[in-house]
């Protein structure tokens, strides 16, 4: 696992330059922290490169890093069916938590179609905006719901269309 991630890191640096990604290897699964601006290009390269073929996007998770941290993290879990590799990509975006200024990450729904619904879910529950997404509507909650429930500072409204929800 360690070896795979350094190989992929070297591959990305050769293609995009030094600033593209850093390795984070604190836990059981090391991850690559990717520059948000380069994310779609990185994903496309990892999907199509003959040494990686990360053709399967398992999961996209949006994480609220906490009120003090002032950042949101979006985590991408990739799998390569031909090689049986797994890889974790992370994108960290600073944000001030205002509801009219959502953290913004480029969409990867052009790379994997399954990202479409996952990004809608992250937008719906965590309030992360995905630039270039073809259809970024709320998916699980009603379209007139207020706020983003998985945020640490979320406070639910008292009423929704005359129904007490608290």
């Amino acid at each position: 696992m360690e070896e795979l991630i350094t190989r992929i890191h070297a591959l990305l640096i050769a293609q995009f330059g030094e600033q593209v990604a850093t390795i984070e290897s604190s836990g059981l699964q090391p991850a690559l922290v990717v520059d948000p601006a380069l994310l779609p290009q990185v994903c496309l390269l990892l999907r199509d490169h003959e040494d990686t073929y990360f053709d399967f996007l398992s999961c996209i998770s949006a994480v609220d890093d906490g009120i003090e941290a002032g950042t949101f993290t979006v985590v991408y879990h990739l799998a390569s069916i031909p090689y049986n590799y797994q890889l974790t990509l992370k994108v960290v975006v600073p944000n001030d938590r205002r509801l009219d200024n959502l953290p913004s990450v480029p969409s990867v729904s052009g790379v994997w179609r399954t990202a479409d619904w996952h990004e809608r879910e992250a937008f719906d529950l965590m309030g992360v905006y995905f630039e270039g997404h073809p259809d970024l509507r709320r998916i699980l909650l009603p379209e007139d719901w207020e706020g983003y429930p998985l945020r640490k500072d979320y406070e639910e409204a008292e009423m929704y269309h005359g129904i007490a929800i608290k």
Partner: protein
Amino acid sequence: MQLSTRSTDNMSLPDNPYRHAQRVYEERLAAIGAEEMIINMGPQHPSTHGVLRLQLITDGELVKEVIPHIGYLHRCFEKHAESMNYGKTIPFTDRMDYLASMNNSHAFVMGVERMLGIDQQIPKRIEYIRVLVCELNRIASHLIAIGTYGIDIGAFTPFMWCFRDREHIMNMLEWASGSRMLYNYIWVGGLFYDLPVDFESRCGEFINYFKPKLVELDELLTANQIFISRTANIGTLPADVAINYGCSGPMLRASGIKWDLRRVDNYSVYPEIEFDIPVGSGEMGSLGDCWDRFKVRVDEIRESVRIIEQCLERLTRELKRTADFDPRALVPKKVNVKAQDYYVRAENPKGELGFYFVTQEKSDIPKRVKARGPSFHNLSVLPELAKGVLIADLVAILGSIDIVLGEVDR
């Protein structure tokens, strides 16, 4: 009535970028052509297997576009999971894919055990019991998939037969765990209880009873000419589209990809067990059609029966119950995981079930838990499969995906 004090005025402005997609969607529906009609299928439609609403844009009998609306069964699993400790979350995982509760909790527990570093210490007997109950549950889940699929396209008998046989499994699992469908049986570090005395022999009796029934079911449906003409060459899903949409489980295998996490990841005691991975063959039509998806499930039941037989053999011989065996010996009083993040995946009856944990230091409550439900992905391919099909075929396609809305909406 006290309304929220937060300012959301900006949300209603017409140029709000966060509402842009909703407006495009509404305009798209308002501007449909004179020959087109919008039909709502669901949320209370029997063939949607729960509360799923499909908005069909149709031209006569042809479906031009399908817009799925989900979320009717959203029960805030992820929010719950980050407000209580790991052990208390297990009953909530049961309620995700409520037709395969054992498999859900197995995946969740496996993730927590790996983060704790105790996954190698779990006694073999416990691991075999886990695999045994998971495979029983897999059979029960596939029986529902097959039975309700029959009823979707007009065959009533398979439904009755499948539910009759599933009832035996429900009774056995109730005997072991105390509950019919939502078990809370697999715990972090062990099990709720050891299997009841004589469970193994009764399970063996069930397998002997079930094998000929499976042949009967096969004869009734698999080669049935009416069934074949309703399913073959319908809803063909090419392998590259399946992968791109994140489809997994029988859905992906029916398209010809041999990808089963039980073999790929070799978790639990699956490496010690012999079984094959059935894949689609395109025998009756094209590779990856509805018939292939159905057939893969039937074959998987057969493989699960093989796994159960091997588990029973080991549980009655070298891993026999002993008087001093305590299935809760390793269950931690408090789950103290150091701060890290971990993604665990396991093969559910419907496909790859994943849990992504972000833990925090000195706390037994996770900071974030994300669940990746296989049905969520398998359903997302429906608009692609349903382009240009007949409305009647849409029912056949939806049934062949085998979704559980509890898992789609979580």
